[in-house]
């Protein structure tokens, strides 16, 4: 048994929170790229592609993130890739975030009245121009609040990476709890750390939502 003061527990957890933050940002940025690519594919290509994207979203929203992490961890290994927890967690969380973000953003694009597309068509704008000058500016306004809200879900999702051996906040908490035999204090501190990370983001998301409603 190791003796840790609460201060030492907190400072160790604070150091580990860096990796939670880093993984969250990687997943969010990667998921954003995947989400945008899928959204573009859905808007532009035929029904077959649309069906494929819908299936992708269904699979990632219909299976546990934990199992997705396991599949990435063991699946990449099948191809002879030496899988570090960083790669497995980054890949799984990116694909997971991509599925949710593309669905969120599709909702935002769908919320733009058809007349806007038709008006843009009648001006002979190309697909890219329609998106850039007509649809995106309006859809982006709607998208801010749910996108920021989803960031909370990503941060919480990274906690599952602890199970495949990624040393972030939760894993560090487990290790300290095992070393000090003080799981009550340690897990309470871990929860508070996540709360400190996520709560401001939740408040921001609500703020954006209120502002959007008011502007309408």
């Amino acid at each position, binding site marked *: 048994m190791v003796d840790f003061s609460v201060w030492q527990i907190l400072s160790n957890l604070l150091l580990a929170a860096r990796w939670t933050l880093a993984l969250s940002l990687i997943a969010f940025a990667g998921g954003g790229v995947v989400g945008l690519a899928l959204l573009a594919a859905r808007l532009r290509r035929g029904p077959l592609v649309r069906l494929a994207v819908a299936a992708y979203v269904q*699979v990632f929203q219909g299976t*546990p993130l*934990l199992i997705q992490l396991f599949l990435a961890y*063991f699946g990449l290994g099948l191809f002879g890739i030496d899988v570090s927890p960083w790669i497995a967690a980054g890949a799984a969380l990116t694909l997971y975030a991509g599925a949710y973000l593309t669905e969120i953003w599709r909702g935002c694009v769908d919320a733009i009245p058809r007349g806007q597309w038709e008006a843009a068509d009648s001006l002979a704008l190309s697909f890219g121009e329609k998106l850039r000058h007509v649809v995106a500016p309006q859809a982006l306004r709607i998208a801010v609040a749910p996108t920021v809200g989803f960031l*909370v879900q990503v941060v919480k999702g990274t906690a*599952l990476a602890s199970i495949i051996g990624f040393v972030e906040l939760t894993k560090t908490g487990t290790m300290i709890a095992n070393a000090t035999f003080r*799981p009550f204090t340690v*897990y309470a501190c871990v929860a508070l750390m996540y709360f400190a990370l996520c709560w401001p983001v*939740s408040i921001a998301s609500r703020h954006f939502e209120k502002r959007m409603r008011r502007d309408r």
Partner: protein
Amino acid sequence: MSRLDFAAVLADWPLLLRGAALTLLLTAVATVLGIALGIACARARTHGRPLARALAAAYVELIRNTPFIVQLSFIFFGLPSLGLRLSSEAASIIAMTLNLGAYAAEIVRAGIEATPRGQLEAARSLALSERQVFLKVVLPPSLGRVWPAMVSQVVIVMLGSAVCGQIAAQELSYYANLIMSRNFRSFEANFVAAALYLALAAVLRQALAWIGPRWLFGRAATAGR
């Protein structure tokens, strides 16, 4: 690339079935308790006294801004130091209930706040007590309005319960882990588990969409939309 062997995993189908059954059981219990807790908190936040309002808000924010796995670890590993020792199944149910309760509270609250004023006035003019107004006039249509969101949340909680295998609750992911530790077919075992979760999610969605209007809020509540 080594060859995939799904037969080795599927041969253990009785274990997978048992795991899926416990996943559904945990989810069913947590759904009933969690929605009840959510309704209580939603009522506290919309009709309660200032203290009840603040407590319900704190609970909702605390749960919604921390990961489920930390909540579960706190309950299973942390509470025994206060003398509260729980089986892994009991800890799983409590964690899932508390988790669902917080999200359900926000969902139900949105439904309650969308109640037309006229309905409240009509109910009060019939001299119903506040309690009767809430239970008979406000709540059923509110649930009807938000039921699709509630169903999605229950599915999310069911999928989240995969973590409960980590504290040795013998649900689906627990058996997937057990199978892969026996035959080292790690990818195949998790792939089969993922397929089963996908099927469970679809079944759960259908079941809840069927149950809601029949048992909870009546078909009239959704017919008006």
